[in-house]
């Protein structure tokens, strides 16, 4: 993974010193709240319902065991002993004191981490496939490109005050695990007919108030032109994006209002001009330097004597379930990527204690070459596990409550913090997720139901991506009480679809029952091995609607 050089260390050092000074001046009254607010947001610090919240960037969801130990330490020393992994592959803390935040940033800087560009109208943390670099189905590892974009966009003066926030996702595989069609820019690494690497570029996707599936702006962009082409898109957006209305300021609205053809013409013109001016693409030598950080590991493997995988798989039902749901194909023979579910039955999606983080860091050192990934579905991944080690790893994970065998199943729910923490929320998300998880706690039932993605947002900002849940839930405010809209048929992968609202909403006591009805209906009408989403696509909304509102 990428390691900072002296220059990276220096800019972080300067940045944390600058923020320390800003906090001191704010506490001393030399900066007003109005002056200070944008400064704290630029450093990932929000004021939420109960306290400040700090969001720490995890570039493209890759981190190491030392960094995880630091997350644990910060949670214990400055917060309440836990952290929360978000749908942007970041981690956030819900209870820090403002006066402690400069120290937190120093602690983070000591392990090459920060909270820059996790808030504000700038290019946010680049997200990618959690299996990047190890996925069997990938064309190329997307992380070096994500790192190139990160370095290019960090503190890019031209793009520090965009009309609105700007999110970029990149996948190296055809099967899209990074939801690229729902980002301001989505990139798919691919090869052209002659085998050269490049990108399919998608623009203007997004969720929130106006969900839009992104449009392809360029079917094939040669690899070397990545930055100049992104620069051209960003420039057109920066110039023409609406600044008069916050709700119409994202690039998706610009693309929608101007039409993809006209937007493409403007971008291509700008791109040509950038090239003529002496373009901004990365010199080959610099690119090589970055790629060197992402060379595959040696896969040197030297751990405990192997337990008998076949015996475990045959006789230990829980282990079998975990293997069947949480294991993923690896490009290296005898290795696997393993999802570590942060969705214990009845638990809070994405939350993890300091102790669990520390134990997990030790396990990563033993079983995953010290590397961990965070996923946009609020889970973690060990990317380099030797198959011989799976029984031992499972036993260890089980002892710290991190072996829930539910990846991609009914209880693997994405839920935003909702009204329990978030000042923008209309309704709670977490208790709904917990109730669903408890209701479907029987692993046999969960296996029968099969792949099902439930996503619950506490407001229209859609941080939990409810529009693209197979079953989506949106919290709305009904005269001061919580109410929930139910959506069906959304999909975040390469078959992107936006869910449709079933009809009138449900109150907090009804929504889980409504979801149960939807699942029961699916089980009654599914054909063969159809997944929920397949059945929905075959039969449409009607049977579900009939069952819900008869």
């Amino acid at each position, binding site marked *: 993974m990428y390691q900072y050089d002296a220059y990276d260390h220096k800019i972080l050092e300067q940045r944390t010193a600058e923020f320390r000074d800003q906090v001191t001046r704010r506490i001393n009254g030399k900066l007003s709240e109005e002056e200070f607010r944008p400064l704290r947001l630029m450093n990932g610090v929000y004021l939420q319902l109960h*306290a400040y919240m700090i969001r720490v960037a995890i570039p493209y969801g890759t981190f190491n065991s030392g960094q995880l130990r630091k997350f644990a330490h910060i949670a214990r020393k400055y917060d309440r002993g836990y952290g929360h992994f978000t749908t942007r592959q970041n981690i956030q803390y819900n209870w820090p004191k403002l006066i402690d935040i400069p120290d937190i940033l120093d602690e983070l800087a000591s392990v090459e981490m920060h909270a820059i560009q996790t808030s504000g109208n700038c290019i946010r943390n680049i997200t990618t496939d959690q299996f990047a670099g190890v996925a069997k189905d990938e064309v190329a590892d997307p992380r070096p490109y994500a790192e190139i974009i990160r370095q290019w966009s960090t503190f890019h003066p031209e793009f520090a005050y965009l009309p609105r926030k700007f999110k970029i996702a990149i996948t190296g595989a055809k099967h899209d695990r990074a939801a690229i069609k729902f980002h301001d820019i989505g990139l798919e690494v691919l090869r052209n007919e002659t085998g050269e690497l490049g990108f399919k570029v998608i623009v203007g996707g997004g969720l929130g108030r106006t969900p839009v599936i992104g449009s392809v702006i360029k079917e094939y962009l040669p690899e070397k032109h990545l930055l100049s082409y992104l620069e051209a898109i960003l420039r057109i957006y920066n110039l023409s994006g609406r600044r008069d209305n916050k709700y119409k300021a994202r690039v998706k609205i610009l693309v929608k209002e101007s039409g993809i053809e006209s937007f493409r013409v403007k971008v291509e013109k700008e791109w040509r001009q950038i090239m003529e001016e002496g373009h901004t693409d990365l010199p080959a030598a610099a690119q090589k330097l970055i790629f060197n950080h992402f060379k595959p590991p040696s896969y040197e493997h030297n751990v405990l004597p192997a337990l008998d995988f076949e015996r475990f798989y045959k006789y230990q039902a829980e282990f079998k379930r975990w293997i069947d749901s949480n294991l993923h194909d690896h490009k290296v023979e005898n290795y696997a990527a393993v999802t570590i579910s942060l969705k214990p039955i009845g638990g809070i999606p994405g939350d993890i204690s300091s102790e669990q983080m520390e134990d997990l860091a030790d396990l990563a050192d033993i079983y995953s070459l010290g590397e961990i990934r965070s996923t946009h579905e609020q889970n973690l991944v060990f990317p380099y596990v030797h198959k011989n080690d799976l029984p031992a790893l499972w036993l260890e994970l*089980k002892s*710290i*409550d991190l072996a829930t065998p539910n990846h991609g199943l009914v209880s693997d729910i994405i839920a935003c913090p909702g009204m329990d923490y978030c000042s923008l929320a209309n309704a709670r998300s977490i208790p709904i997720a917990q109730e669903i998880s408890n209701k479907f706690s029987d692993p046999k039932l969960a296996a029968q139901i099969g792949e099902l993605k439930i996503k619950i947002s506490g407001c229209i900002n859609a941080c939990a991506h409810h529009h693209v849940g197979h079953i989506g839930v949106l919290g709305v405010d009904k005269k001061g009480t919580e109410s929930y809209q139910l959506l069906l048929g959304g999909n975040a992968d390469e078959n992107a679809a936006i869910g449709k609202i079933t009809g009138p909403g449900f109150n907090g006591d009804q929504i889980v029952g409504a979801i149960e009805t939807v699942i029961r209906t699916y089980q009654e009408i599914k054909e063969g091995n159809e997944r929920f989403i397949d059945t929905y696509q075959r039969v449409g909304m009607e049977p579900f609607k009939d069952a819900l509102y008869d």
Partner: protein
Amino acid sequence: MTKAANINNALRVIAANNLSDGVVVYFTGTKWSKNLQFALVSADEAELLSAAQNSVSGENIIGLEPVTVEIQGKTITPTAMREKIRALGPTINFSGSDNRTGTYSNVSI
């Protein structure tokens, strides 16, 4: 203004946050308390807000906001769920350090 008195509806208190730690506080009439039950309740929102603003020294209290409440017996209760949660804390509890309940015990091979 009457402290926690039984007066008409549309009663308000003023909520805010401590600058240094972000903690939610309520205006008591003279100072700021973490306990909603010490809040000054009034039907005159403008007067209440202005008194609260005047009490803020050196900007150590931020985000002043009127909150609608009801008084049941002697208990002040916000009418909106958001404000109830803000006053009492999250309705869910992540148990942090003591959540490791897993064991090796039921594993037999």
